[in-house]
Structures are given as C-alpha cells and as structure tokens.
C-alpha cells in the first residue's frame, strides 16, 4: 500500500482528484483536506470552475473539524455571496455555531431548516450530532429512533444507534439495529461481520453459533476480510471448547483449524512470521471420539 503522508508537495491536478475522491466516498480526513487546500488548491481555486463550490463546502467542514474558524469563515463568505439564499450554506452556518459550542442557536437553525425542507434528512442528522456533542446520549437515542421512523432504510443511522446502545451496555438492542442494517444491504460484509462480533460478545453457545454463521457469510462475500477470518477462528474454537456434542466438537475443531490455516497463509503472503507463530498456539488438538 502506498501511504501518502505529505500533501504539501503534490501537483494541482493530483490534489484536485484526491479532494474529489474523498468528497465522494465521504471519508473524514479533515486535517489532510485543509493541508491540501492551503498548500496546493488555494493557489488557483477559480481554475476549478464550478467544482470550486463543492470544494469550498468540503474545506469549510474540514476546517470546523480542525478548529480553523478563520478558514471556515472565508469559505462561508465566498459561498454566501455566490448562493445568497441557499439552505446548504445556512447549514454550514449552523455547523459553525456548533463548532463554537453555540448549540442552542444551531438547533434553532436546524429546526427551521427541517421545517422548510422536511425531505432533506441531513438537517435532522445534524440535530442528533448536536445532542451527542452535548453529551446527551439518551436524548440522541430518542432522536435517532424518531428519525428512523421516517427514514427507516438509512443504515448509517442504524449503525450509529447500535453504537449508542452499546455504550449503554444494551447488546440486544444493538444487535437489533445491526440486523436492520443487514436487511437493508444483505451483501455488505461489514454489517455481517459486525453482527457476528456482537453475537460473539454476547457469549453463550447459541449466540456464538450465530456469530459463526455471520462470519461465514461475511467471508463468502469478502474473502480477504481479516476480521471475519479471526472471528471465525474464535467462534469455532469457542464451540469446540464448550459444546457437549462430540460431533459438533469435532466439526468445530476442524473448521477452527482451517480458519487458522487461512490466517497463517494470509500472513505468509506478506512475509510475517511472528504473528503466525503466535496463532499456532490457538490450534486445537482433535480429541479422539469416545463411543
């Protein structure tokens, strides 16, 4: 993997495409966005043509994240003069209030935005973010539940809700949220794996058995997912150690060791020896079957 650590020296074109890529996949690399902007793109923003506006929006949000109030303010002013009546710019202003911890004033703007444009879910999501920033976790849970009554196929919101339930130590509810995610996108291996993780954490043979099924499915979809491979190993080993059924024990031992072989193979491909040697300790010995 090529790991780029310095964005101050890249070409303008490379900087432009990188920003575009990050914007489209929604990754949060705020500090690097600001660096790219200041060292590369800000040299000639007008040459971007119409692309400059989404870039200003992107840089503005990144600037909030890095507490660069000055830079954010510049972006908002430029966007404001270009789009004087835009709700999108108004949202940025509300985010600016959030960044400076004027939460109540931000909420007022979001309420107003929800009213004028009830179909735009991003304003409602910001309201949840404000509650979280204020540390009001229970209120945030309530707000997301309300939100999900309207936008019930928003997996990002279900995932966030699942995390909040976990912080409240409520694994069953967290599991329910993840099940919704799997229903929404059954081919997303991350959701399946996460559901496996939750079931494994819950513990008990029945749950770990479910976890194993989720990991198996996740690997079928994405065979290179290291986390699912580890999950499969742990789940099988747990069942092999705790099941009272000799046939099940035998089957899980074999499956666990197969998962381990897969992992060792993965590490050998990247020339790593230390971790596979450690993993060998997790290898189970097949017990002779007693009749």
């Amino acid at each position: 993997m090529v790991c780029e650590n310095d964005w101050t020296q890249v070409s303008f074109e490379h900087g432009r495409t990188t920003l575009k890529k990050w914007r489209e996949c929604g990754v949060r690399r705020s500090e690097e966005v600001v660096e790219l902007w200041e060292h590369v793109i800000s040299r000639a923003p007008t040459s971007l043509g119409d692309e400059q506006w989404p870039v200003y929006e992107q840089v503005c949000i990144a600037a909030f994240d890095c507490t660069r109030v000055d830079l954010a303010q510049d972006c908002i002013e430029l966007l404001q003069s270009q789009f004087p009546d835009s709700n999108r710019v108004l949202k940025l202003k509300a985010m600016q209030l959030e960044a400076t911890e004027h939460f109540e004033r931000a909420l007022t703007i979001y309420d107003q935005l929800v009213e004028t444009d009830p179909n735009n879910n991003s304003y409602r999501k910001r309201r949840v973010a404000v509650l979280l920033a204020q540390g009001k976790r229970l209120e945030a849970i309530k707000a997301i539940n309300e939100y999900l009554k309207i936008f019930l196929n928003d997996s990002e919101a279900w995932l966030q809700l699942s995390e909040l339930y976990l912080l409240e130590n409520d694994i069953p509810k967290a599991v329910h949220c993840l099940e919704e995610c799997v229903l929404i996108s059954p081919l997303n291996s991350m959701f399946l794996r996460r559901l496996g993780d939750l079931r494994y954490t819950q513990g008990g043979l029945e749950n770990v058995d479910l976890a194993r099924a989720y990991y198996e499915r996740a690997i079928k979809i994405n065979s290179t997912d290291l986390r699912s491979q580890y999950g499969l190993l742990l789940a099988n080993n747990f069942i092999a150690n705790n099941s009272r059924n000799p046939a099940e024990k035998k089957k899980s031992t074999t499956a666990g060791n197969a998962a381990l072989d897969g992992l060792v193979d993965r590490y050998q491909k990247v020339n790593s020896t230390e971790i596979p040697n450690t993993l060998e300790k997790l290898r189970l010995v097949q017990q002779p079957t007693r009749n």
Partner: protein
Amino acid sequence: MVKLQVETLPVPYSTIILHCLKYPSNGVLGLLIGQKKGGKITVSSSVPICHEATPLAPSLEIATTLVHSKFGAQIVGVYFANSSANDKSLNPYAIRLAERISSVTNSSAILIQVINDRLMADCEEDRLVAYEKETENWKEAETMFQGANILRGLQAAIQKKLYRDLNDFENHLDNPEIDFYNTNLGKKLASVAELRA
C-alpha cells in the same frame, strides 16, 4: 495507603498522544507495556489497539493474545481517550479490558486516561492521568511527569506530523502488512524528538 507511582517514558508517552491526534474525532484504546517494581510502574512501551467507540470482544481478544505472547506479564495496563473532548469519565470498555488483563497476568492492571482538553499545544500540564484499582474502585495514582522535556519532544513530533505514521491494531486488521507495534515510529521519535526509548 501509599499511592502507586506511574512513570510513562517519552516514547510511549508520545505514541499515546500521537494515537489521539491521528483520530481527533474518535476515542482510542491501547495497551501499556512496562515493569512493576515495588510501588512504582514504569511504562516503557505502548501498543495502540483501536479507535472505535465500542470495541467488541473478538478484536480485543486477538489483540491481547498477540501482545501477551510477545510481552507476557509485561502488559501492565490499558490507556484510553474518550471521544468527546470534555468527557473525563472512565471508559467502561477500557475498564473491562484492564480487568481482563489483570486476570490474565495475575497482577492488577492500571488505567491511563488522556485528558482531551489538555491536548492543546500550549498546555503545559501532564496530559495523562493514571488510575489503580483498589478493592472495587478505581482511584487516581500518582504520575511522574517530566514536564517541559517531554512536551518539547512531542511538539517536534507533531510538527513533523508523525501521527500519520502511527498505526493501531485496527489498521493492521485492514491490512496485515501494517506493523501495529510501530517499530519505525519509535525510531523516528528517537531521532526527530531526541527522545530516548
């Protein structure tokens, strides 16, 4: 009772802070490696584990198994930072992990919390607070802080953006080539920040 003394050497100290800086919007969690001598614990190394709010059993189990086989009973505790800047509460996931480590190493593990609002560059206070477990409660231990010396080195490391070189176990799970023990970062810290290991 005499308070336990906790000293974090410059390299693990910087690694912990760099882990926080790499993920400014997340909480982080990692393991502490060191020695216990009488009433004093010296943290000589740290292993960054994850940057998610709610780390679940499987990845933590694998991470501790791997680190334990490398360092054995030298795992002395857990460090963590909460995701919210003003949140100074003890993280339940960090507590659970520390208790698990205590039962594996058979000696009581410590907790180190990063105080988020002291991460500001101009803050001269110790960014870390240590806790030890006494019967059922976690109470603050005494940290031995080298002050200006450590902060100057840290400043140089931050200026060089060394946090971009740091990797945790979660990064390793995304790409098995990644070394979450951060051997190279340790070397860089030693040269850039003139920190002795």
